[in-house]
């Protein structure tokens, strides 16, 4: 323990490098927050100052809320992300548990399909999926925003892994002997045991969905239905006169939910990221 406490040159170098990395990670956020109180001439200047000249008045935020339906955009993102999260978690549990604990004819095919969908990137079907949703009349709707990511091969895979590791067969068998139906076993025994994993999956899904960009960009043209990512892109449209302070204010508002979720649950989220990275590869 003594050796750990003592400051050797190696340790100083190591910790200094890691703190530098922390600084580099955080600096753009600090710039973003300070910038949301600044005017263009303070942001784009050869003699920059750290603090905003006119103090920390919320005028950029007030201006933004007055001139742009940013709160509506936030609400859209919230609705879409929550719906996606609930759906992904629910269906991942159903399918992941089925694959982990039942030996049903067709299981092999289901596994192959899930691994294949994990590997074929979404981008490859961007065009045909757009055509499909247009023909179904689902563009510019919440359903159209949620549906493509309502079930996730990643989530199924993750739940299957956890179910294999954490649900003892005896537990299920005991419940079955007492005459519990399969759905009841799932609801009152499996789901509670799996809840840490399900919460991790839900948190990760929420963040991914909140940050989603490409599909909302093409699925929605009505600015009332913009998610916050798409609103940001429009606000920063370089073909218009951009008020950077106002754009940064919108950026700050848009990252608050993610920062809150990550601040509260960063340990669970990092666990899910590692678990989901494909231990079987």
């Amino acid at each position, binding site marked *: 323990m003594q050796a750990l406490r003592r400051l050797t040159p190696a340790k100083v170098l190591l910790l200094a490098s890691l703190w530098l990395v922390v600084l580099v990670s955080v600096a753009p956020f600090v710039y973003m927050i300070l910038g949301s109180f600044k005017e263009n001439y303070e942001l784009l200047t050869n003699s920059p100052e750290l603090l905003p000249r006119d103090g920390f008045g919320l005028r950029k935020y007030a201006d933004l809320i007055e001139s742009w339906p940013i709160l509506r955009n936030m609400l859209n993102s919230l609705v879409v992300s929550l719906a996606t999260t609930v759906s992904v978690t629910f269906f991942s549990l159903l399918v992941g548990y089925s694959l982990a604990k039942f030996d049903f004819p067709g299981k092999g095919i289901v596994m192959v399909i899930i691994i294949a969908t994990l590997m074929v990137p979404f981008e490859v079907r961007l065009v*045909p999926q757009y055509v499909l949703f247009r023909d179904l009349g689902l563009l510019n709707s919440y359903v159209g925003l949620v549906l493509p990511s309502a079930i996730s091969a990643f989530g199924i895979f993750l739940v299957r892994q956890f179910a294999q590791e954490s649900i003892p067969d005896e537990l299920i068998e005991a419940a079955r002997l007492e005459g519990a139906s399969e759905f009841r076993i799932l609801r009152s025994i499996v789901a509670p045991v799996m809840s840490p994993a399900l919460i991790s999956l839900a948190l990760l899904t929420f963040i991914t969905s909140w940050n989603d960009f490409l599909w909302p960009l093409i699925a929605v043209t009505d600015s009332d239905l913009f998610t916050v990512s798409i609103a940001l892109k429009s606000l920063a449209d370089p073909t218009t006169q951009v008020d950077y302070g106002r754009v940064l204010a919108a*950026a700050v508002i848009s990252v608050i939910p993610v920062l809150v979720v*990550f601040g509260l649950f960063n340990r669970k989220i990092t666990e899910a990221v590692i678990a989901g990275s494909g231990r079987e590869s």
Partner: protein
Amino acid sequence: MATTSVGDPPTPRPGRAVQPSTWQRMKRNRHVYLWIAPWAIFFLVIDLYPTLSGFRYSLFEWDGFSDMSWVGLGNYQRILDDALFWKTTGNTLVLLVLIVPLRTLLALVLAAMINSALVKRKQFFTAFLMLPNLTAIVVVAIVFQILLTTNGGLVNAALQALGFDGVPWLDSTNWSKVSLAVLNLWKATGYFTLLMLAGLQQIPKSVYEAAAIDGAGPVRTFLSITVPQMRNVILFVVVVSTIFMVQNIADALVLTQGGPQYSSTPLMYYMFINAFESFDLGYAAALSVVLFGLMVLLSGATFAVNRKVGE
């Protein structure tokens, strides 16, 4: 019961397992079919059908509205003659070279540093490393756009204060790709560090103890133990990193708008432009197929290199 993996009872006659018919197994598991039915429908409608129609569209000329007209492999022929296709494919490859090796190396070194016994609050550092990765790419691109503005952006202001010339980050055909690389390094290195760290923690401590007894220093230990032990994880990171890069579009779309003169338009973005700006859907579908082929090729190449190295 013999077929569910849950608590198989002893078979009636030892040595001769009674195999229930497929039909019996299906009947016993009928609730499972009900549970996976929504997924199956989802797969057919949202995954399989569009994937197949993508291949079909690639054989037609179509603006998305009027009648489709059959061109056979015409779109693919057009791709071969399309200077912009070659240019954007080249951009994607240059970006890969700029980003993937450096990001992989940085991730491995950072992970090894965090994994060091000298660092106590590992969770603290990994949390901050993950932060950029969990931030929306649009937000990151907007912040970088302001930071990297040629006239008066903070980065150039700092360079000038230190006596260097400003760099035309977003306004030059050479630097636009570098700017995209900087953004991608900042955003995703932490994610890969986390994957590397998870891999490092799987390496048995005894291997390191043996090296310490042999008197190996930290650099030597890193090169002769960590790197070989981590080969599979590194390979995984390279493949995922490559796939991320090839799929990426939002960064270029917001940071540089692909410019100047298509210098920072990756192939994926070129496909997007054809589909949603030129409404050349058949051609865009053909580009998607090529893009998919490229991804398979790049992953395959990585695995092949790994096998060579392993021999």
